[in-house]
């Protein structure tokens, strides 16, 4: 619990240092504190500037939480703190907000649906929906999703969405897309629908994918984490991919696109999904060039600069198009 790890020769991670600092601060404030303890803390702090910084940071956060005493109940009321906290009006608004910050920068919508609700995002847009049961759906750029009043059925008409579904055995969540049904069996999954192809990547849990039309002999498949199902109107195939690639596919959730040895053609196509300015790669030899890149979803300029400065390509603006050529 104390910070003696610093005397070891191994490299301390930020997590190690910050955990030690948090331990020191809480020890100092919640437990008996002797001169020996203080001396021990002083030694730990003297070890490195990194320790000092982490300690200042933890102490600052500790002091900030001091404001919480404003919420203390009037003396005399006897109640379990947990139930009090859950019950309070403030907690409910806090829980709602928690989702907002947990999800980062995109807006969050809460909604009560009457019949069916349609959600659309524009090119470059992103939207996070939170369903009544806490399930979350993040819509990527240029996407149309309809949700039934029951909130247990949805239709992906276009685009891409990431689903984090609270599982309910009695009412499984069903997503319809491209004539396929994806039935959640306790899941986080990514669905992308382009042209007539449907791609379902399972991040966590389990899901079943099957044809939406009854009595067809199309296959049914159970997806496990790391599985990616590729479905067209009349075929279904499952590919196993490393978790890291799925992570990359989901990088748009952080407004970032990650390419690992991707062709310029792929990079351009991906960026074009998010931007009004469209990249056009002229020449198949140029299109087949490969790069490793992490590019913000709105990073058309960053991309053209790389093309120009690092790959020595020509970049030419023509109206809404940017043509990249040899």
């Amino acid at each position: 619990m104390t910070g003696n790890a610093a005397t070891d020769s191994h490299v301390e991670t930020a997590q190690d240092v910050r955990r030690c600092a948090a331990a020191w601060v809480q020890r100092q404030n919640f437990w008996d504190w002797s001169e020996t303890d203080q001396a021990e803390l002083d030694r730990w702090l003297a070890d490195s500037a990194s320790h000092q910084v982490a300690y200042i940071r933890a102490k600052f956060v500790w002091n900030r939480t001091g404001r919480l005493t404003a919420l203390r109940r009037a003396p005399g009321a006897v109640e379990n703190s947990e139930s009090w906290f859950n019950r309070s009006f403030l907690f409910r608004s806090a829980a709602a907000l928690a989702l907002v910050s947990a999800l980062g920068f995109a807006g969050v919508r809460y909604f009560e649906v009457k019949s069916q609700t349609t959600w659309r995002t524009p090119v470059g847009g992103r939207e996070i929906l939170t369903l009544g049961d806490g399930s979350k759906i993040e819509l990527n750029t240029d996407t149309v999703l309809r949700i039934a009043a029951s909130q247990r059925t949805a239709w992906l008409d276009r685009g891409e969405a990431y689903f984090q579904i609270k599982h309910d055995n009695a009412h499984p969540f069903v997503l319809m897309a491209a004539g396929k049904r994806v039935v959640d069996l306790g899941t986080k999954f990514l669905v992308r629908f382009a042209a007539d192809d449907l791609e379902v990547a399972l991040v966590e849990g389990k899901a079943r994918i099957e044809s939406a039309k009854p009595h067809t002999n199309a296959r049914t498949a159970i997806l496990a984490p790391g599985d990616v199902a590729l479905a067209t109107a009349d075929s279904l195939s499952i590919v196993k991919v490393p978790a890291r690639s799925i992570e990359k596919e989901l990088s748009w959730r952080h407004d970032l696109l990650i390419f690992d040895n991707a062709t310029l053609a792929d990079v351009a196509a991906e960026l074009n999904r998010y931007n009004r300015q469209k990249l056009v790669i002229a020449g198949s030899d140029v299109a087949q060039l490969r790069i490793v890149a992490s590019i913000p979803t709105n990073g058309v300029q960053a991309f053209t600069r790389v093309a120009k400065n690092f790959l020595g390509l020509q970049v030419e603006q023509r109206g809404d198009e940017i043509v990249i050529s040899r």
Partner: protein
Amino acid sequence: MVEVPKSDRENVDLVREEPVVPASELEAWFIREVLPLEADLMQFLRRSWQNRSDLDDLCQEVYTRTYEAAQQSIPRPVRPFVFAIARNLLIDRVRREHVVPIEAVADLDELGVALDAPSPERNVMARDELRLLQTAIARLPPRCREVVVLGRIEGLTGRQIASRLGIAETTVSDHLTAGLYALADMLLGEDSHSGKRS
């Protein structure tokens, strides 16, 4: 561009200079001017660095370098200084990595332009602050939250919490440590503004 002391840690260690700026002044400055940059700094690092598991280390390293430099003289203005350190650190790392992700450097150049941009106002009103804190606490795991609530809202000591909940004191201690650790990341490192980013 801002002048930044050479980021050669070994050299600094060999000829470690005695701090000039008093510790209390340094600490007050760090809390007032550096820690509020953490959300932006983390966003910058996330955008510039692929490997998520390095982010905390990078942030901590930027803090340490900033703090060490400030021991000699407090840099003003602080924002471009901190981001220049972050940028140098990333360039050092990029050079050390086997495969150089060229676009990381390109992005850094792009971000270099944004360094002088005024920082969004991050001073929160007292009421917002309270809401922010509650939000953060609500996100702790249940048992951990319970311990933190008893300790920080009800004002119980560690020993009182242990007897109230009938759990070991070391368990209480672990929950408090974990709670404080998580709260620091939530309150400092994440963007607390739910609106779209610029």
